[in-house]
């Protein structure tokens, strides 16, 4: 088992390396190694590779890692293989915030008041999405009256999701110009990732991954059930809250930079558990790596499949992730 776990990590590291190179080489004209070497010798190498492709590639890897980590935390915390990072209202919260910023102008004209509308439009989309994601989770926690009861949390997450989505719908109805931006956000995109995004995503991952690993024994103990975990001396309410904050921050950060990238957070932990199941200390690390590889692969494919056109990366992750889960389902179902 140990060997399988190590092998998976090495495979993910190797895949990351290969895909990073592919990410640097993939451009508007699709795959061309000769074109890439030519580009490197040309005058635009610094701009195209250094300022556009490199941060986008690294940013996609980091976003995927944060989503994979958040997915593994969510599935461990809720002991539910269908849990994903968007479960607690972060997706709908972030969407609403983005729509509110995009619709600020119209809302200002319709009576929100110029100062408030001005303030909204000054808030960047990234900051708004991050704050919205955290706000969504906070609302869920408030409705569930804390993090103690799993079922109450999940139901509160559903309620927040439905209500905030309805408010977003209402806003887009009032301000149709927000529709296009909302659509781009909901499909997910790695196209806007720059070095500043990488810095934020990287800092988030460097903080969140070790913290999650430090708390991973809580997730292991939860395998025995909540009472047994408490009988082992774990302060479960506080630890669950800490894990939810971590989950919300990692998801919020990823979503604020790349929009609602579907399925990565759901599929990455499944992939890890399928090939090398283990304690959560390992699963969290490996899921982050698997999420990174999945999103980077999807990003490279999004850039090259119908080049010079580009596919929304969220559509590809949904197709990849959905197909993978379907394969898994067929393999696991009794023949």
């Amino acid at each position, binding site marked *: 088992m140990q060997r399988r776990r190590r092998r998976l990590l090495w495979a993910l590291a190797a895949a990351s390396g290969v895909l990073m190179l592919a990410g640097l080489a993939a451009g508007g004209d699709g795959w061309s190694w000769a074109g890439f070497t030519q580009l490197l010798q040309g005058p635009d190498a610094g701009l195209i590779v250094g300022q556009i492709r490199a941060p986008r590639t690294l940013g996609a890897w980091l976003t995927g890692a944060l989503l994979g980590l958040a997915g593994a935390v969510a599935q461990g915390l809720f002991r539910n293989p269908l849990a994903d990072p968007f479960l607690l209202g972060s997706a709908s919260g972030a969407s609403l915030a983005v729509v509110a910023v995009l619709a600020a102008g119209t809302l200002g004209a319709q009576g929100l008041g110029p100062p408030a509308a001005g303030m909204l439009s000054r808030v960047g989309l990234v900051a708004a999405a991050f704050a919205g994601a955290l706000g969504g989770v906070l609302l869920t926690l408030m409705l569930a009256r804390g993090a103690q009861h799993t079922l109450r949390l999940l139901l509160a997450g559903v309620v927040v999701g439905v209500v905030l989505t309805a408010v977003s719908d209402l806003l887009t109805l009032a301000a149709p110009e927000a529709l296009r931006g909302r659509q781009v956000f909901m499909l997910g995109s790695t196209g806007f990732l720059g070095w500043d995004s990488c810095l934020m995503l990287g800092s988030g991952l460097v903080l969140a991954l070790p913290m999650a690993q430090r708390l991973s024994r809580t997730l292991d103990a939860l395998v025995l059930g909540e009472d047994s975990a408490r009988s082992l001396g774990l302060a479960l309410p506080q630890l669950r809250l800490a894990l939810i904050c971590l989950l919300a921050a990692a998801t919020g950060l990823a979503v604020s930079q790349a929009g609602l990238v579907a399925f990565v957070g759901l599929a990455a932990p499944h992939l890890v558990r399928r090939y090398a199941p*283990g304690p959560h200390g390992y699963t969290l690390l490996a899921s982050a790596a698997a999420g990174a590889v999945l999103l980077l692969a999807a990003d490279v494919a999004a850039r090259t499949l119908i080049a010079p056109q580009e596919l929304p990366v969220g559509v590809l992750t949904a197709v990849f992730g959905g197909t993978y889960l379907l394969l898994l389902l067929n393999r696991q179902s009794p023949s």
Partner: protein
Amino acid sequence: MTAALRAQDLSVALGGTPVLHGVSVDLPPGWTAIIGPNGAGKSTLLRALAGLLPRQGGQVWLQGRPLDDWSVRERAQRIAWLAQQGQAQGDLTVRELVHLGRLPHLGLFGTPGPQDEHRVDAAMQATECADWQHRRLQQLSGGERQRCLLARVLAVGAPVLLLDEPTTHLDPPHQVAVVRLLQGLARQGTVASVLHDLPLALQADQVLLMRAGRVVACAAHDDPQLHAAICEVFEHAVRIQRVGGRYIALPHLD
């Protein structure tokens, strides 16, 4: 003898319904079997004694000190609790699961040392699950899983063990092995176990009989008054006989 765990006038409600009504029990060193019909409050008593349920009234003392005065971790080092029909899903191997028993000592951030590994090995040997320590829980039968969960409890090394139906899913040889194990553990500490199997329960040092959230009798296993109370509580569906120096419960079919 001083009780390792003592409860006085314990009242507990589940979902607003009172389940325990002023229960007072002493668990001295040795093995106490808790028996009673379904819904008598046996598991609730065990959970309340472990500090896992809020109390509506009464007090529990662990080693002479109120349970609430111990920190959660100190308590976990002294009381090990086995859940009824314990869950054990997930991707852990048997050894990783048993290792969770060291959490009260190591905390979340501690690194296991040789002593912890030794405890884990000893616990797995005691419940005969060392042979498949590298197998995953999903690959085990119900009885095998139960032995792993029991090993997890033993790995804590706590002086007080509260076990809710530890012989569930076990075949007769392993039921007997668990009873021998409990008898051995009871020589060094305090063991309380909820048991549905009356013949096994009658091998305990002390038997606590419950009905409808109250203690009906608490006496040594060979006490004739206890035997009479058991027959009465179980509506004379069982009778107790002495066979070769031991008491056994038989179904009353005549």
